[in-house]
Structure formats: C-alpha cells, structure tokens
C-alpha cells in the first residue's frame, strides 16, 4: 500500500531512469524525425530542474492541447499516423509528456514500464548488435532505477542498485537462454497494423544500369556472412558469390528477365557446403558461392542456377546451401539460344563491326573470347570507381572514347559484344571476395564487394564464367583488406592515415575481429533463430514433432525447477556464518537451561555464571572457567587461541557430572 500523498520522486531513481532513456535514443535518432527524440531528451533534462522545485504539468486543457499538438506534428512529419515510425514517435511523445507530469510513486513505475516499451520500439527500428547493446544497457538501467526506487527513499551506496540489477540479470540468463530456445515461436495469424519498415540498406537491384554498382561501392554495410562448416574454403580461387542472372541486355543496361526454359542444374558430388547469414534487404534474392546446386528451405533454385527466396527477406536469415565449382555441360534450347543472342537495335555499326571482325577472323568461340579480352587489355581501358556518368546508350562512348569504368561497365559491354559475335552471353551480379575473419572463421561480405561478371555459353563445355574486369584491374578481383580501407578512405569515412596506423595495430585489429565475430553470432544465432531453426533444434535433441503447448509446459517446468534451485542457493548464501565463540557459549546456555537454569535475555554472562553456580554448586569451578574464557574472548583486547580450546573443552565437559550421577543411580 503506497501512500497516495503528493510525494516527489527521489532524485536517484530519476537519475537512473534518465540514464536508461539516453541509451534508448540511438535507434530513435536513426529512424525517426529528429524532433521526436530531441523532445524526450529535453523532457528528461527539464525534469531535473522541475522536480526539486515541485513544478510539473498540472493544467488539464494544456495537457490535452499538447497531446493534440504532438499528433498533428507527427502527422506533418510522416504524412501518416499508422506505421512503425509514427507509432513509435507517438509513444515517445507521450513518454515525454508523462515525464513533465509525473510526480508520484505509481507514476514512476509507469514511466519505467514505458521505458520497457521504448526498448521494444527500438528493436522495431533496428536490430543490429550495436543497437541491441544500447537497448540492453537501457534495460539494465531501467531495472536499476526500479531497484533504487524500491530500496527506500534514502539513496544508500550509489552503485549498489546497479550491482543488484546485474545480479538479477545474470541469474536470469539461464532462463533467458531456455526460453529463447524452447519457448514456442508461433506466428500470430493476425498481423500488427504496422507497415514493415523499409529496408534501405540493400542497394542491390534486379538491373544493372550505369552507376548502380557505383552507389554501393562505397558502402561498408554488411551484405551477408558465410561460413564453411567443412573447412573446405577454396583459398586459391577468388570467391564469386552468385546473386542474380541478367539476360536482357540493352547496351549498358542489363535487366532481369524470367524467360529461360532450361531447368537449373542439381548436383550431388564434389560440393562445398556453406552456411550463409544474410542481412535483410527486403527483396527475394539470396547469395551462394558460384554456382549453387541445392535449395535451402524456403527458397528455390531458378534456371540459371541462382537462388530465390519465396518470401522477401526482412530479417536476418541463416541458410545452408551447397555449391559446385564445376558443372556439367548443358544444352541450350533453340528458343533460349535466340533470347540469349538478342541485342538492342540501337547498337551502333562501329560496335557491330568490331564484334564481327573477331568472329570473322576465327569463328572458334574460345578465340573470340580471347580477342575480346585482348581488346580490353590493350586498348588502355582503366578501372575507376568514379568514371563519370554513362547513359543507357553510351556503349560507344565507353568502348571508343572514355574507356574508363568498373565491373558493371565491363560486364555489360563484354556481354553485349559476345552476343554480337554470336556467343550466347549473360551478366551475373553478386559479390566478389569478402573479408575473412580468423577469429570467427567466416567471410564478411560487404555491399562494397558488389561485383558484376559475365557468363558465356560454349558448345563444348557449356556455361563458363568470364570476368572482363579481371583483365583490366586484376587487383580488384584479388582485393583484400588493404583495398577495403582505401575504398573507405575514398568515401571519406575514415582518413587513410588513421586507418593505416590504427587498423594495423594488433590490438585494434583484434577488437575489429571480435566485434565482427560478435555481430556475426548475433545475426546468425540470435536474429536468425526462428520457428524453423527451433524445429531443427527440437529434432536434434530428440523431441521430434513436439507441439507448441508441450514446449510451453516443458519450459515452464524447467523454469520452476531453476527458480527452486536458485532460491535454495540464495538461502544457502545468506546463511549466517557461525561464530565459534558464540556457538560454544550458546551451547553452554542450552545445557544450563536443561539443568534448570535458563539464561534470561537481559542477563550478562557474569551474572548468569554466578546464578548457575548457585543452582549447580558442583560445577561452579567449570562454570567460572567457561564464563571467564567467554568474557575474555569476547571483550578482552588480546585473546589467544588456547582459551578458545579451553572453552570448547569445558563446555563439552559441562554437565558430565550429572550424567555420571544418573548412571550411578541407574546402577543401584
């Protein structure tokens, strides 16, 4: 029963609450209109000025006006009231107003509850590890605020509530893990009235237009991470990650077209197994080492051997896929062949002449390819990430005048030239390379690793990969960490000197690796753990086809058992350490009580000894020794161990006289 007086909220809990709310802010500043989190920040700051003076928002019409004003402001900012961002903004605005208004104990608890809801909102806006760490800190601080609040009005030691909160959370960890693994992940049939948040990080698209790769080349965002569980990483060859196959060429622009008739190639032997954790991009494409031959759950292998997810990928997803580096020859259908040779009519005669000159010199496809690559190698083509702007029909401009570009330009122009020379060709977009993390044994592939290359069909061996970028800029294909840093430097994200001096330091390199590994674990094991992964787990621990209700029961029973064990352990930890002197004296008192001389609560040891001696005159000497030893051990400045031994012996012997007597009575 909390008294409903108009109490002020003590300063300390308010401080902890404010600290917690500050940690809730990062995802808010990232995803919301900036005035919303700023309002919360202002509210927190002002509260510390208002609270000691007793000021607060009291006037009801003003409150209503503020709420209406906030609603209007949200509507103006987002153009809607529905959806995740406006919804979260509304909660934050209400929280800010509540901070202005709150002053009682009940309202303090309400604010902490709202803080929990804000944590949840943070996870709606972003889920990466950095945000998760922020939110977990906020959660811990909210718990601390509650503990500080309920431990009493006087502050006490500053860090004690934080320690108590960390203890509670640490003890909760086994339960959290248990629930995370076993709590049934049912998908509620009715969807929340929230639009899924737009995933803007992708950058990848189903077309290759001039400049599309350029936009991503400077992005350090993670595309996916790949693990080779069988440790058969092909170290010697560059890692081409196949994404999408583009078959419709319009000169410099290539597009995806669903038209191939031939079925994808499945393969059983000689494959490389990969575990890939993909970052959400809001689309259907999935990646695998060139070329995937198995279908992960929830995805299919399309003609042209690329993967396509059934559902849009809006959260991190982990899947297993097998790839084969070499595939058997596959015939082309006549119609398919025709489509793979289509070129736009707008191609200039000069280009047509160039392609035809190659095929007339030697009709062997291998020779044509060699000539085309020679053309790129010898005609002073340059590789640059900022080649200036090309338009859709600028193939002439690129091939004969500027001769500067990067993978997308080379792949597009090469594939067009091949088609003109009579070789079926297509463009593949995906990623190339990736950074190997030695600590976590996985490849980290970033958006900046985006790459485009060509595939040509040869009558004798079938589809074959040709990467024209390789002849222009071999270092791009074999790029490593160094070039990654340079790319960063070019994008102005970190200065080259800073990155060179610090990133190479073993200590910082280790921190980088650790952070990447933690991110990977978070994305693959935590965010990627869904209903399917749970089913796989229950299968593995020998509970196939277990129903959600049984899972719920199982976790409840284990949780109950855990709580009982925890309580017993805590009780054991809180037991009073017995004091040997006090224990012996208590034993003496108990013995004396049995012999008819119980010690009064107010009786000092000396008084008690003299009284017991009167009751039991036979033991008076022993009683005096016990009493003197006890007083000495308790109150004398220097007490020695021998008197403790003497006390133990005398207490042991005390009363033996009576037992002996009783025996002799029995003997009569």
């Amino acid at each position, binding site marked *: *029963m909390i*008294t409903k007086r108009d109490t002020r909220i003590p300063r300390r809990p308010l401080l902890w609450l404010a600290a917690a709310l500050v940690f809730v802010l990062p995802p808010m500043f990232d995803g919301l209109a900036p005035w919303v989190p700023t309002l919360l920040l202002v509210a927190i700051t002002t509260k510390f000025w208002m609270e000691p003076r007793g000021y607060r928002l009291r006037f009801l019409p003003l409150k209503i006006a503020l709420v209406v004003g906030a609603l209007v402001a949200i509507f103006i900012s987002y153009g809607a009231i529905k959806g995740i961002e406006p919804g979260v903004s509304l909660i934050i605005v209400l929280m800010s107003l509540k901070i202005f208004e709150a002053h009682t104990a*009940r309202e303090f*608890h*309400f604010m902490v*509850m709202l803080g*929990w*809801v804000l*944590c*949840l909102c943070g*996870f*709606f806006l972003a*889920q990466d590890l950095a945000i*998760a760490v922020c*939110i977990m800190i906020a959660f811990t601080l909210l*718990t601390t605020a*509650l*503990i500080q*609040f*309920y*431990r*009493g*009005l*006087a502050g*006490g030691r500053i860090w004690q509530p934080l320690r*108590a909160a960390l203890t*509670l*959370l640490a003890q*909760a960890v086994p*339960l*959290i893990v248990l*629930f*995370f693994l076993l*709590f049934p*992940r*049912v*998908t*509620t049939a*009715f*969807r*929340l009235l*929230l639009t*899924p948040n737009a995933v803007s990080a992708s950058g990848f698209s189903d077309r290759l237009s001039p400049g599309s790769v350029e936009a991503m080349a400077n992005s350090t965002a993670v595309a996916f991470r790949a693990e080779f569980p069988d440790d058969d990483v092909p170290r010697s060859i560059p890692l081409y990650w196949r994404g999408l196959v583009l078959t419709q060429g319009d000169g410099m622009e290539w597009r995806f077209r669903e038209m191939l008739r031939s079925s994808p190639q499945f393969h059983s032997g000689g494959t490389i197994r990969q575990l890939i954790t993909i970052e959400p991009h809001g689309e259907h494409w999935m990646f695998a080492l060139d070329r995937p031959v198995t279908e992960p759950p929830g995805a299919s292998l399309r003609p042209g051997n690329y993967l396509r997810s059934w559902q849009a990928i809006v*959260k991190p997803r982990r899947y297993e896929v097998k790839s084969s580096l070499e595939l058997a020859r596959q015939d082309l259908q006549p119609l398919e062949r025709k489509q793979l040779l289509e070129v736009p009519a707008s191609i200039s005669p000069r280009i047509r002449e160039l392609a035809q000159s190659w095929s007339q010199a030697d009709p062997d496809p291998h020779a044509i390819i060699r000539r085309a690559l020679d053309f790129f190698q010898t005609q002073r083509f340059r590789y640059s990430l900022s080649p200036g702007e090309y338009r859709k029909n600028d193939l002439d401009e690129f091939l004969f005048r500027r001769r500067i570009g990067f993978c997308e330009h080379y792949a597009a122009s090469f594939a067009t030239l091949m088609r003109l020379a009579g070789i079926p060709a297509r463009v593949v977009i995906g990623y190339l390379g990736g950074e190997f993390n030695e600590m976590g044994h996985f490849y980290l592939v970033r958006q900046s690793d985006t790459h485009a290359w060509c595939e040509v069909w040869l009558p004798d061996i079938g589809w074959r990969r040709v990467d024209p970028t390789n002849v222009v800029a071999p270092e791009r294909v074999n790029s490593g960490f160094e070039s990654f840093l340079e790319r960063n430097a070019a994008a102005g994200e970190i200065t080259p000197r800073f990155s060179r001096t610090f990133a190479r330091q073993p200590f910082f390199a280790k921190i980088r690796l650790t952070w990447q590994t933690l991110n990977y674990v978070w994305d693959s094991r*935590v*965010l990627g*753990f*869904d*209903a399917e992964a749970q089913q796989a787990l229950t299968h593995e621990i020998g509970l196939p086809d277990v129903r959600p209700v049984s899972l719920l029961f199982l976790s409840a029973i284990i*949780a109950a058992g855990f*709580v009982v064990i*925890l*309580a017993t352990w*805590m*009780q054991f*930890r*809180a*037991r*009073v*350490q017995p004091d040997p002197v006090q224990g012996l004296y208590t034993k003496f008192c108990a013995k004396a009580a049995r012999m008819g001389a119980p010690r009064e609560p107010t009786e000092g040891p000396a008084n008690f000894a003299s009284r017991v001696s009167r009751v039991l005159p036979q033991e008076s000497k022993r009683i005096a020794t016990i009493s003197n030893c006890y007083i000495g051990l308790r109150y004398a400045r220097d007490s020695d161990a021998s008197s403790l031994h003497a006390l133990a012996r005398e207490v042991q012997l005390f009363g033996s006289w009576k037992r002996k007597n009783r025996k002799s009575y029995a003997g009569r």
Partner: protein
Amino acid sequence: MNLARLPRLRPTAALGGLVFVLFATWYAASSQNNAAAYLLFFTLSSLFIVSIPHALLNVASLKATTESVKPTFAGDEVSLPVEVTNQSGKRRYGVRVQVPDSGGDEQAVDEIAAGRAARVLIRFPARARGEYEVKRLCLASAFPLGILRAIKPINCHQRFLVYPKPEGDPRLPPDRARSARNRPRTELGEGDDFAGVRAYEPGQSQRQIDWKAVARGHPLMTKQYTTEATGALYLDFAAVSGDDTEARLAQLALWIIEAERARRSYGLRLRGTEITPSLGQVHFHRCLRALALFK
C-alpha cells in the same frame, strides 16, 4: 527452510502493468517475427521470475520485536517502538513496518546490514480508552522490482493503555473533603519540609535524588518532603454531573491533569475503586489507568 513460514507474496498494481507490457512485447515479437523483440520478452519475463526468490528472501529472515508503549490519551497517537533484526548473512532493503488495521502509517527501513537491527517508531491513532494489545505486525517489502510485495506477519503481544480523552470543565471541583476530615494525613512527595530519605524508584523525579549521597558512594536515594495538606482533593466519579460515562471519565481525566499541574494532592473514587490522595508521576498514571480500565 520451513515452507509454511515463508512470507506471503501479494501482487501490486504494477503487476498488471508488467503483464500488459509482456503481452505487448510477445504480440509484437510474434507478429513481426522479430527475434530481438522475443529476446526482450524473454529477458523481461525471466527477470520477473528471478525476482520472486529475491522478494521472498528479502523479508524471510527478518524478525521484529516490540518494546513497551507509553500510555496515551484517546485522540493522540500511540508510538510503538519496533526493532527489526536481520538474521541472515545478507543486507536487506526497503522494508516497511506496519501494524495492520491500526489506521496508521507504515514506517520504512531502507537498509539493514547482515546481523544488525533497525529501530522504527510506528505511530497510529489511539481511538477509545481501554487496554489494547498489538497482536500482529507486518513486515513488507516490494524490493527488488516493486511488482510483488512480500509480506511477513509477525505475532507479538504488546499491551498498551489508552487513557480517556481529557475534556470538560478545567476548573477543579470544590474541596468537599476538607471539612469532613480535619487535617488529613500528610502525603509524602513534593513539598517544602524535609522528611527523610527513601530508596529511589524508577519514575520518581530526578530533582529529589540525594546526589550528595550518591557522590559519597551511597545508592540512589530520594529526599522526601511533606506538604501541609491544605486539602486533599477527592475526584469522585459519582460527583461528576452528567449521564454519559465517557464524558464523566473525560472530565475526571482533565481534573487529574489540572490537579497534577497545580500540585494539589488528589485522590480518585470510582465505582469499587478508591485511590488515596497523593501527587507525582506514579500516582498520576495510577489514577489515569483506573480511568482507562473503568467498566
């Protein structure tokens, strides 16, 4: 530990809030298939579950003992001194001590170190005159999360007296006894003429202690004086006008206070009881006690 003696757990209003937040989190997590939100849901529920033994053990090993209560007048406040002892080896926090159904506030003890004790004074209104007994104390704590309140009832037998509320005419009644008894015997107590010494009894005025004798090593003695009994006042229940017993007792209580303040020796006559005239704290409380217990 004895399960039957575990404290009881009562949910607070905050539990409703928690359930709501938990449900919202679960619903959001499952409809969005958001593993991070699931993690938050599990963290919050695990935190709550783990806090249960903490809440229980926080008050389980607390003991409370009461100390004697000074008598009060009806309408005033009763102050009950309580000593709360922490018998465990861990620090305990945020304990509130309360006398259930007394209508009084609860007193907070913020923190008790292991093996230590804390003292609080619980105040509650004294209602009607009579003898009462505090049979039960409650130690309660919402620590750590304020979602559950652990309550440990503690039995005690602390009796206390509530004197009648002093009300009525403050003028003392005319001294009828004086004419009846010529020069009544003098009463030892406060006065001007030294009459000897007597062993000290707790409650006697310290001013009367023979400090010179104490300085010489003698035990505590009080110097006794006599007063010429200018007239011992008999406060008689039967002589108070009115029909209402309580009002008459209130009048008597007021007179006792006034007489004591005026240092006039007074006696009390109730139905079946008579207290011979005297003065001083012991006598004062004896008279009021008789009023409190009057039936």
